[in-house]
Each structure stands twice: as structure tokens, then as C-alpha cells.
């Protein structure tokens, strides 16, 4: 495996295969668009699933090759063509795959393929079957472009592309206007973030331009940042915060998270793929990619951590009161993303990415399981109308349960290891004022408990507890077809097992995952990638290399036990409320009264946005932009031109009187003028 060039030549297959699938299925959908029935589902499924599977196969092949390479040389790159060549700037359509990208690629193509297979079962019978797969493949293309991009503009292309596909897929059943509105909301909120992202990108570009080498290539940026430390450090805070706002939009953090719960209007596979495993993690990926800039701006990193933690606990609290099973999972996603941002905010990039990977498994499994439940109940989504489904849908129940245990953070399932690594990193972090890391750790711990509670609340309400299933739904109640249950099993297995990759040194593991990602997150030219998390650079966050020492190892184990206890308490509390004393929950909510209503209505944040932002925006667009500027000024100018032309014509018309002698008169005048000119 020495000569990597032939391997790099395969890179283009990874995004292009789904693109081809999208085009083919799109054409099929178009051709059949006027007819009653869509194209043959078998054919569409074949095309739609073959594409991501092909990408997955190529990714695995490249991964095998990468493992055989030396740690520092684990890079595949390939330039397809020059996209923009303007003066000093050249931006190529270039791919660059290192260990981090490879990790993301495995997740995106692997989980993506499984969800494609699941969708063949879930979307069976839908008139828009082909259109769905076309959009889904298109999304894969955009996401893969984002992950594999060598430079920031290309990343942004993928960034926008996933936003577009998200809009298309959320509003998939567009005939219901509420779905279309949800899609619109997602896109617009994303756009707000994108604006900040662009400005951040421009700032970085400006710095490189002033240094003489205008570029937005990530490897080049990294090299330049290492050399021209002061120039970058000056703008780092601004750029990082702006980029983070972009990440907030894409990854649904405060204050731009409002689109994610509404996005549940889309089909469940969409929620699983886009809003759990892949698109929403783009923000985390971006920050991990640009870790060298965040290192130079500890203030910005602190902001990231704080916002992440706040979002985590905030969203978890909303999850307590939701009735719709998908909404619970949506807020859970927001909360877990908060964890990831908390991790990268304190410099534990590897931990954040590890949680990203484990979250992809168990959250996708949870969503697909919810989809299976909804499918089996013919569309019911309210948990208070479910119950005792464990008897009727065994596979769904088991996989859901496994994933729930994983997300709650119970060892030895995956969620425990990733969440714990984050909490440990936060505990030891040096970010912001001295008390901040401890506060963040407490918040993280509390959120862990809350997560365990609301997830198991969902489990108990759905699969155990009182049987509230309606009569009609009972008739059709059945376990889902193999196309749907197989991916569930695979994902649940992953959720159970993936944790082995990140077993920390303290309890005897070797933390393979962290070592795999080390070259990416090593510090500046020196590369002090020791211990858990970031390398050293002045003022930046450093997780003590003292993790090696035994004293801290004991502390680590203690903290682990604490978090397990908290999680278990959450599970038991949920069991208490929803299984053993069914009436207790209702009594509890009435006692909380107003506070409960507040939480149930998501703290009225959407209503706040509506009042403060949407309505004034609408008023400006209508009164100012439309009435005044568009209809008034611009149309006035255009009409004015017409009126002026008409006036000119009218006045000149007077010359054409029809009286010939007047013409003779004018001729004489003209002649005299000519004479005058001649003799001057």
C-alpha cells in the first residue's frame, strides 16, 4: 500500500455515485410525473441503494489502505478541476481525505446506506417514491462533498447543498402546507447561519490575502496559521464566532435550533439521516476541521462550550414534556449536539467526534425505531396513545431499548464511553474563568441524567405502561418488514459495540479512536498530541497530560461511576412515573402547573421569534421593500421612462403639422443656419 496515487483516483466515485443515482431517479420521477403511478419501486430502490452502497464500498477500501499507511501520511487527495481562477485566487474542486474525513465518510456512507435500505420499506407505496430517493441521493452527494472538501468554498457548497436537500425532504409531502412551512423555516434559519459562516470565511481569506498567499485551502491555511501566528490570532476570535454561528444554524444550537423540531414533519428516514446522523453534525465537523483557528481564540472556544452546554440542558428539559415521539427525539438530538459542541469548545475535538460517531448509531436507530412504531400504528405519533408495544413489535422494541440504554450512558454501550470522555475532558479543561469547567461539568452531568429520564419515559410510554392504542390502529398492528428491521438490528449492534473504540486508558483500554485522530488534532508544528484532546499552544485549552498519571485515573473512575449512577437514577425515576405509578405523572404535571405549560410549549421561543423577528421582517418586506421601493421607486423609474418617451413623442408630433408651408419655413430656417455656419 505504498503508492497511494491510484487510491486517490477512486475518491471521485464517492460523491459522484450518489449524484448519478439522484439524477437517474430524478429522471424517472420526472418521466412518470404526469402519470398515476410512479416508476417501478424495485428499480428505484435498486438505483437508490446501489449508489450509497458503492460509495461505502469505496470508502471501506480506502479505509483499509489508510490503515496500512504511516500515521502522518494518512491523506488521500485528488483535484478534479479548477473551479474559480480569479487573479491571485485559485479555488479547485479538490478532495482531501485525512483520518477525520475518513471517519465521517464511514459514518455517512455506512449509516446512510442503511437508512436508504430502511426507506425502501418505509416509503413503500408512496407516490413520490422515486422523488424521495432522488433527493436522498442528492443529499448524500452534498454531504460527501462537504466532508471531503479540501477548501472552505467547496465545503460551503456541500453545506448549502445539504441545506437545500433538507428543505426538499422536510417538505416532501408538500401538499400539506404545514410541511412546506417547516421546510421553509429550516432553510431560512439555516440561511441566517450561512451568512455568518460566509463572513467568517471572508475574514480568513482576508488574512491570507494580506499575507500574500490568498487561499482557502484547509491544509494551506493550517500551514500559514502555524507560521504567521499573530496575523491569524488577531482575527481568530471574530472568525471563530462567526463560523460558530454558522454551525449553530446547521447543527441546531441556541438560538438557531428552532427549525429542528419542526423538521420532524418530514418522513422519518429523513429525520434519521439528516437530522440525527449527518447534516446536523456538519457544524461539529467544521469546527473540528478548523481546530487550529479555534486554538488561537480561547474566548471563542469558551463561547462554543457554553452555548453547547446551555443548549444541551435546555433542549433536554423540553424533551421532558413532549407527547410526540419524534419531537422527543428531535430535542434529544439538539441536546446531544450540545454535548458535541461542549466537547470541541473545551478542546476535546476527538471526544466530540467520537460522540458524533456513537450518536449517529444510536440516534439513527432510535429514529428508525420510532418510524417503525409509527408505521406499525398506521401513523400514530402521540406516545400517550401507545403502550405495551413490546409484545407486538419485538425487534423494534429490542433495538429501541438497546439504543436507549446507549444514549443514557450505561456501560458497556457506546454512549457511555463517548459521553464520559466528554465529561472528563470538560472537568479537566482550562477554558474561561477557573470556575467555568466545573460548572460546565455539572451541567453536562445533569443533562446526562435528564437524557436518561426522557429517553426512558419514551420507552416506557411506547412499549410498556398502559395500553392506550386506539382500536383501529390495533387492527393493523404488525412488526415492520425486514427491509426496515434489518437496518435497526445493524444500528443497534453498532450502538452496542462501537464504544470499544474509545475505551479510555484509565480503565485499561487503549482509546484507539483518539489515536486514530491524533494527527489531525495535533498542535502547531511541534505536535504535542499527548493525552486526551488538544495539543499545547499558549493560552489554549490543554487537557492535562496528567491523564497518564494514576491520581487522575482514580478521579476519572470516580467520575465515571457518578455519571452511571445519575443515569440509572434517571431511568428508575422514569420507570417510577410511567410504569409503576401511572397516575403520578399526571399529578406531577398538574402540580407544576404554569411551569409545565411553559416547558410543554417549548418555552414559547418560536412565538418570541415570531413576534420579534418574523413579523417586523414581514412588515419591512411589505411596506418598505415592496410598496415603497419596488412598486414606488423602481416601477416609477421604469414607468417614468415610458412617460418621458411619450411626452417627447407628443411634443415632437407638433412639428408634423401637415401644413407644407410650415415645412418650407423650417427648411428656410435650416438653410439659413447652414449659411451662418459656413461663413463663421
Amino acid at each position, binding site marked *: 500500500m505504498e503508492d497511494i496515487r491510484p487510491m486517490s483516483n477512486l475518491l471521485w466515485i464517492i460523491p459522484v455515485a450518489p449524484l448519478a443515482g439522484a439524477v437517474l431517479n430524478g429522471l424517472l420521477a420526472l418521466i412518470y410525473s404526469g402519470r398515476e403511478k410512479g416508476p417501478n419501486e424495485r428499480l428505484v430502490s435498486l438505483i437508490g441503494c446501489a449508489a450509497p452502497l458503492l460509495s461505502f464500498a469505496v470508502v471501506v477500501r480506502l479505509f483499509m489502505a489508510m490503515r496500512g499507511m504511516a500515521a502522518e501520511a494518512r491523506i488521500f487527495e485528488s483535484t478534479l478541476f479548477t473551479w474559480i481562477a480569479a487573479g491571485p485566487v485559485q479555488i479547485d474542486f479538490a478532495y482531501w481525505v485525512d483520518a477525520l474525513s475518513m471517519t465521517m465518510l464511514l459514518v455517512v456512507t455506512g449509516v446512510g446506506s442503511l437508512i436508504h435500505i430502511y426507506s425502501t420499506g418505509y416509503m413503500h407505496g408512496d407516490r413520490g417514491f422515486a422523488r424521495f430517493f432522488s433527493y436522498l441521493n442528492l443529499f448524500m452527494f452534498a454531504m460527501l462533498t462537504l466532508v471531503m472538501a479540501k477548501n472552505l468554498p467547496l465545503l460551503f457548497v456541500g453545506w448549502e447543498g445539504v441545506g437545500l436537500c433538507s428543505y426538499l425532504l422536510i417538505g416532501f409531502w408538500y401538499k400539506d402546507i404545514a410541511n412546506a412551512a417547516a421546510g421553509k423555516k429550516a432553510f431560512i434559519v439555516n440561511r441566517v447561519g450561512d451568512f455568518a459562516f460566509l463572513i467568517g470565511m471572508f475574514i480568513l481569506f482576508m488574512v491570507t490575502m494580506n499575507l500574500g498567499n490568498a487561499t482557502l485551502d484547509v491544509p494551506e491555511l493550517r500551514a500559514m496559521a502555524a507560521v504567521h501566528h499573530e496575523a491569524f490570532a488577531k482575527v481568530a476570535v471574530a472568525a471563530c464566532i462567526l463560523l460558530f454561528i454558522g454551525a449553530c444554524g446547521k447543527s441546531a444550537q441556541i438560538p438557531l435550533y428552532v427549525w429542528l423540531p419542526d423538521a420532524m414533519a418530514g418522513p422519518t428516514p429523513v429525520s434519521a439521516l439528516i437530522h440525527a446522523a449527518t447534516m446536523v453534525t456538519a457544524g461539529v465537523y467544521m469546527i473540528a476541521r478548523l481546530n487550529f483557528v479555534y486554538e488561537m481564540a480561547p474566548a471563542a472556544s469558551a463561547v462554543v462550550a457554553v452555548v453547547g452546554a446551555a443548549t444541551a440542558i435546555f433542549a433536554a428539559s423540553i424533551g421532558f414534556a413532549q407527547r410526540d415521539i419524534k419531537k422527543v427525539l428531535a430535542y434529544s438530538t439538539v441536546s446531544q449536539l450540545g454535548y458535541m459542541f461542549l466537547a470541541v469548545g473545551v478542546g476535546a475535538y476527538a471526544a466530540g467526534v467520537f460522540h458524533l460517531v456513537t450518536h449517529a448509531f444510536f440516534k439513527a436507530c432510535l429514529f428508525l425505531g420510532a418510524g417503525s412504531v409509527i408505521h406499525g400504528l398506521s401513523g400514530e405519533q402521540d406516545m400517550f396513545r401507545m403502550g405495551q408495544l413490546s409484545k407486538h413489535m419485538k425487534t423494534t422494541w429490542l433495538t429501541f431499548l438497546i439504543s436507549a440504554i446507549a444514549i443514557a450512558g450505561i456501560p458497556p454501550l457506546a454512549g457511555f464511553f463517548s459521553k464520559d470522555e466528554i465529561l472528563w475532558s470538560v472537568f479537566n479543561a482550562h477554558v474561561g474563568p477557573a470556575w467555568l469547567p466545573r460548572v460546565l461539568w455539572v451541567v453536562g452531568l445533569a443533562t446526562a441524567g435528564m437524557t436518561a429520564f426522557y429517553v426512558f419515559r419514551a420507552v416506557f410510554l411506547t412499549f410498556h405502561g398502559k395500553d392506550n392504542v386506539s382500536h383501529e390502529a390495533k387492527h393493523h398492528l404488525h412488526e415492520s418488514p425486514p427491509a426496515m428491521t434489518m437496518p435497526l438490528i445493524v444500528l443497534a449492534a453498532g450502538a452496542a459495540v462501537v464504544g470499544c473504540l474509545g475505551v479510555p486508558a484509565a480503565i485499561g483500554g487503549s482509546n484507539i479512536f483518539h489515536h486514530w485522530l491524533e494527527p489531525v488534532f495535533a498542535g502547531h508544528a511541534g505536535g504535542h498530541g499527548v493525552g486526551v484532546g488538544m495539543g499545547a499552544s499558549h493560552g489554549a485549552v490543554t487537557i492535562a497530560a496528567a491523564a497518564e498519571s494514576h491520581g487522575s485515573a482514580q478521579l476519572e473512575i470516580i467520575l465515571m461511576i457518578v455519571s452511571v449512577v445519575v443515569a440509572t437514577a434517571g431511568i428508575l425515576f422514569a420507570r417510577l412515573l410511567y410504569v409503576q405509578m401511572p397516575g403520578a405523572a399526571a399529578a406531577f404535571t398538574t402540580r407544576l402547573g404554569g411551569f409545565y405549560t411553559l416547558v410543554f410549549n417549548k418555552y414559547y421561543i418560536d412565538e418570541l421569534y415570531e413576534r420579534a423577528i418574523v413579523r417586523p421582517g414581514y412588515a419591512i418586506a411589505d411596506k418598505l421593500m415592496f410598496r415603497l421601493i419596488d412598486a414606488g421607486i423602481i416601477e416609477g423609474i421604469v414607468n417614468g421612462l415610458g412617460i418621458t418617451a411619450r411626452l417627447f413623442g407628443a411634443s415632437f408630433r407638433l412639428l408634423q403639422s*401637415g401644413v407644407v*408651408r410650415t415645412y418650407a419655413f423650417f427648411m*428656410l430656417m435650416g438653410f439659413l443656419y447652414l449659411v451662418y455656419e459656413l461663413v463663421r
Partner: protein
Amino acid sequence: MGEVTLNHYLYLSAILFFIGAFGVLFRQNLLVILMSVELMLNAVNLSFIAFARHSAGTMDGHVIAFFVMALAAAEAGIGLAILVMLFRNRTTVQAGDLTLMRD
């Protein structure tokens, strides 16, 4: 009184020309208009003859004056024919009454 030079003839020619132009523009009777045009042509003729005399001895001016006269004759003939036709149809020779093009 002094020498009668070329300039005298030219001034006279100009005066006659403008008198004719005045007649064309400000009189309504078609016959008067026609005659004013003849006056203008004559003024130009005078100018040509004067130049021929006071130039290098060639008689080009005479020839041109000859041509002008021939053309004036043709034009007068046709103009009068038109005028007669007009009078037959409209029984008027006032230019102000002929408003077909204006209306």
C-alpha cells in the same frame, strides 16, 4: 456713386431672394406663391451671371442660368396645371383651405 462691383450684384440677388421667400411663406394665394418662387429663381440666376462675369472668363454661369430657366418653365407649367385641377375640384386657390394633410 463709385464702381459697381460684384458685391453689389450679390447683395441685390440676396434681397430679391428673400423677398421671394417672404412671398412663399406668408401669402395664401397659390398663384402669388408660384410667382414668388419664380422671383427666387431669378435672383439666383442674377447671382450666377454676376459670378460668370467677374470670374476667370468662363461662361459656365450662363449655361447654368439657361438650365435654370428651362427648369423654371417646366415647373411653372406643371404647377399651373396642378393649380387648375385643384381649382376645378375645390374652387379655391387659398393655401389655407387645403388641409387634407393636416387633418
